[in-house]
């Protein structure tokens, strides 16, 4: 299986998103680079909106990812309550 990954700007708004990813994706790898944080996983990675919302104390909309996203690798599926990246192979 191929790895999916997500790179976010290393700023305050990303902190809770990364925490939520770690919480909900057991085998995720986190890499801190200059000004960005890279998160990768085998085959699939899910960001659950309720998890992020709990961490920041307000309702978080997955579309807010736009503000901190740098790049990603994989197919995208999104809905009101999640943002998922995956490969089919």
């Amino acid at each position, binding site marked *: 299986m191929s*790895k999916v990954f997500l790179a976010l700007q290393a700023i305050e708004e990303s902190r809770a998103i990364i925490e939520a990813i770690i919480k909900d994706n057991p085998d995720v790898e986190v890499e801190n680079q200059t000004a960005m944080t890279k998160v990768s996983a085998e085959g699939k990675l899910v960001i659950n909106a309720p998890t992020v919302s709990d961490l920041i104390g307000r309702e978080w909309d997955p579309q807010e990812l736009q503000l901190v996203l*740098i790049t990603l690798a994989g*197919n*995208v599926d999104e*809905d009101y309550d999640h943002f998922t990246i995956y490969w089919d192979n």
Partner: protein
Amino acid sequence: MTMNTQKRKKRLNMKDKYKHMTRLGWDTTYQDMDDVFPKDKFEGIVIHDWEGWEDPFRMTMDSYWKYQGEKDKKLYAIIDAFAQNNGQKNITDARYVSALKLFLTGVSPLEYQAHRGFADIARNFRGDGPRVACQMQAIDELRHVQTQVHTLSHYNKYFNGFSEFAHWHDRVWYLSVPKSFFDDARTAGPFEFMIAIGFSFEYVLTNLLFVPFMSGAAFNGDMATVTFGFSAQSDEARHMTLGLQAIKFLLEQDPANVPIVQGWIDKWTWRGYKVLGLVSMMMDYMLPESPQSWKEAWELYFEENTIALFKDLERYGITVPDCAATVSAEKDHLSHQIWMTFYTHAAAAPFHTWLPDEKKMDWLSEKYPDTFDKYYRPVYEHWGKLEKEGKRYYSEMLPQLCQTCQIPMLYTEVEAGKPTQIAHRQTKFNSERFHFCSDHCKDIFENEPEKYVQSWLPVHQIFQGNCGGSTLPEVLKWYKVEFGQDNLDYVGSPDQKMWKEWKGEE
């Protein structure tokens, strides 16, 4: 019996809601659909059901305005702060600025073309889903060209080599390389444009363009460009998913599409690679602090990362582009050969070049253990001697350009194991002879000769008397390149003089 008096409104899931917000078209009856959409059938691509399109990102306009508005607020705050504090003083060295000149003159105009191009296909595809996705990209690309112009506006006030970017892009010899690349995509049909730009450029090759420039900026203290880069990247994530979705959609619609798409992938990976030659020399030679070599970038972003992508596409019968082996073979040579070309032709280019210093040459030895010391260090050392004698070498000849990619034919037969022999291919069409840098460029020509015979080759044009005259000063005047300001070596340039003043040197 209890009555539930609380009104329960049916809730729409995001996928359905987005469909309601975007599937707004209809089959016309007062005009023939083929007249309303005259461009989407001539390429031989077969679409049975446009609703097979899966929307990658589901942003309605209100969300788009909201989030993009927020992003731009942050970006411009930093651009303003950079200008206010004269942030350009904090870069590692003013040589770095030539990388930015290359960007504004070579890349930013392509963003403008992408904007017009995606608007074109957004109008000309029959399906609603792709039309919405494409127009979002069209307006994103307008964002990119404008934010780039704004970010680099401050540099333009102090450094030469930025001021006439629009004029240069349409005329100067090496800028016809990116210009012809995008003109080629723009004049093709909508499906080819989508594969050329949406997939090959924005997905397969994007990391080889943006990461080098952005990490180069980060490593050399250029906060403004780093910030622009990050800000643009989230748009790029949407573009990448569009490109990926587009190719899967085409391949799934009909098996007849597979060989057509494969042909485009092969062609456009090669044409894109040729343009990226400029990036390779930027990475290896123009950054005082280099985060990564071209070879490393190719190995990571193409040879490693793209494998996952092509594995995903294997099931449709798509294979890795046929030029991959050539690019891989050339990775130890590309940046050196192209830097040598620009070093020697520095009189005619509105950005500076210079000899790599010892530190840089040792870095290059380390990154290119099989080739640098053997083939290229000796040349630089020779030119170094000439420079010390006050005879810094400037070529007074104009190079032959490849008919397809328009790069000077100063590359060598690396893949054939003869790296000191100039690579040259030829073919005849309508009893006229044409010249190419490689088999791949020749193949592209032979596939569509009527198209590529039209190329506006800058060197041919100069010799035909269409560029202001037959002498270099006349041509430079026609180019609006200021002699002794925009061109020549960094050493002795007004940029260098100014930099030394700022640093209190000399």
